[in-house]
């Protein structure tokens, strides 16, 4: 009798496990895919809503409301359908709260929760025209047309604007914003330009330690050909500060042009005669 009871008990557990696996698979199948795992080293875990945790592999889909968790030494990168990328540091937990994207217009919305850890956010099309939102236990920030580093370890919150237009601490009243690339925002507000050592520490958390040796792959760098050192900076959408957008001084006695406007229309000579 006891053996029968044990056997039935095992079958019950097996049936329950199979049932739960089916639910997890069904949940994943019906959940909307919003991106893929682009890289991971060595391990990351995802938990879709209503499903159990699953080990992630390169190329796996991620879905809305997925809870992404990295191990003590694991980190990875997610690539979203609108080209947004998230690089997640070890010992991090991120919930992919909201992702709406219309490929036709590029419009949409993006919001995540950083429960703990560090990440690098590089914005895609949805945050060109709308603010991306990153919420942590102690802060909420908005990002527009931008890339940023965000850290939440215990009570410590730090965000660095890497590129783009604007990073705002919207949970502060009033909100605190910076448009300074390299600008650091903490819970106390704007904290100046990020210290190089702090930046290196943040990047090391996300990317791992810097290599001691680089090896040539045989190819040629190509970005420097497109953007030599003497060129000014571009926005994330390719805009540049128009150096000719200045007032042209309006002189009437000599060739005159306002500085910087090298080929602006030249003023006329005035040959006004006395007595006229």
């Amino acid at each position, binding site marked *: 009798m006891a053996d029968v009871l044990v056997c039935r008990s095992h079958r019950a557990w097996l049936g329950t496990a199979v049932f739960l696996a089916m639910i997890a698979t069904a949940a994943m199948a019906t959940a909307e895919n919003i991106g893929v795992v682009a890289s991971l080293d060595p391990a990351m875990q995802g938990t879709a809503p209503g499903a159990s945790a699953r080990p992630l592999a390169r190329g796996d889909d991620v879905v809305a409301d997925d809870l992404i968790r990295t191990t003590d030494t694991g980190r990875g990168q997610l690539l979203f359908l609108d080209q947004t990328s998230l690089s997640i540091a070890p010992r991090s937990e991120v919930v992919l709260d909201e992702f709406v994207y219309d490929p036709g217009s590029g419009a949409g919305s993006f919001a995540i929760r950083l429960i703990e850890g560090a990440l690098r956010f590089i*914005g895609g099309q949805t945050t060109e025209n709308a603010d991306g939102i990153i919420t942590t236990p102690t802060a909420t920030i908005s990002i527009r047309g931008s890339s940023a580093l965000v850290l939440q370890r215990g009570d410590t919150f730090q965000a660095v604007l890497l590129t783009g237009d604007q990073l705002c601490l919207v949970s502060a009243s009033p909100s605190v914003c910076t448009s300074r690339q390299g600008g650091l925002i903490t819970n106390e507000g704007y904290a100046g330009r990020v210290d190089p050592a702090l930046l290196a520490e943040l990047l090391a958390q996300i*990317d791992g330690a810097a290599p001691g040796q680089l090896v040539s792959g045989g190819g040629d760098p190509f970005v*420097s050909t497109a953007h030599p050192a003497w060129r000014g900076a571009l926005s994330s959408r390719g805009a540049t500060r128009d150096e000719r957008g200045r007032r042209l001084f309006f002189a009437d006695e000599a*060739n005159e042009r306002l500085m910087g406007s090298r080929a602006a*229309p030249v003023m006329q000579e005035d040959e006004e005669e006395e007595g006229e």
Partner: protein
Amino acid sequence: MPKPFSLLQRRAKLLASLTVAICLGSPHAATAQQPDDARAAVFAQLLQDPANPDLMLDYARLSVEARDFEAAVSTLERLVDLDPTAKEARFDLAVAYFALGANEVARHHLDIYRAAGDLTPEEAAEARRYADAIDRRTAPVSFSGYVEGGGAYLSDPGALGFALAAGVTNEIDLGDANQTIWLTRARASLLRFPNSSDDHQMSAVLNTGPAFRITRENFGPTLRPFAELSHIETDDDDVQRYGLGLAYQNPVSATFSVFASATAGGFDRDPVSDGLFVLGEIGGSYRPTDATAFWAGFRALTEDADGAGEDRDRIGGWVSVRHSFAPGIVHSARDWIVEGFANVDFEDRTGGREDTLTGIGGSLRAYLSEAHYAELGVRVFDRDSTLDRFDNGQNKVTLTVGMEF
């Protein structure tokens, strides 16, 4: 009794309408960058095979060609993540961040490249150029400018002479969260014809004021109040102007930007008169490619002279174009630049005199090094007056060499 300037008033109303339309109708609104078809196709493949290095390199290159350096950064970060020892990818990543003005993180990757890259002398020199550029960009106080000099020829009186010019721009980073800077520009030029009794010209302008990012966005619209002083001198007379103004600029998108300004102040024209002036301008630029840009603007000036001095009103417009190109026939550290302009202005003066001033010209700047250049300029001017004795035409050719710093 001054002649009613009805035609000028109609032109002024048109200018005012355009001012309102352009300034209010062109708020800072980033246009979403849609991947082109080729890039979209590669990106679709990347979603299926995100760790494929060939696809990533392809996508990064296409993004750079499309001036979407942020997409290039995203992809190059992944390349470097997959292979942290990849030397060329590390340098490309540094330069892509540099292109976006992310100077601190560009320096971070550049430092790794320089320290661990076992660089050739050419690679080290190029990395050094970017490092120096980052130092200049991040300096709290910076100076830039040019000096140039050379020969000049004026068709009337058919004289050869020399031309000198210099300009300096000083930027002071005020250190706030929104990168407010104090911008000061000074420029001076001298044109002298030793063998002619006429045609000595000298000018100097000083303009200073802070630039505010009014929407707290890095590449959003800026507003700059300024003070300006100028002195222009010829053999016959000279004029000083002093004024306060406001300049607006908005890099609306990768291809289009708008600007406008207004200045009011006083002038002192010796020996004739002094008085007050108001000057306004509005314009925009269009950049269809990275190498080519067009500008167009409208402007209006009104001078109210004291006493027996002459009032004048001027309204006009201008267009200019700039194209940079690799010369091909010779190796050049920088692309050469060819520019052209045309302008027409209508001026009404007290007493009924009306002048039409036109100008057209162009220049070719050949860079001999990254900082040194030679420039050939040709300009043709014409003044057509209702009083024939004021008709005048002038052709001017200059050949100068200069240095930028």
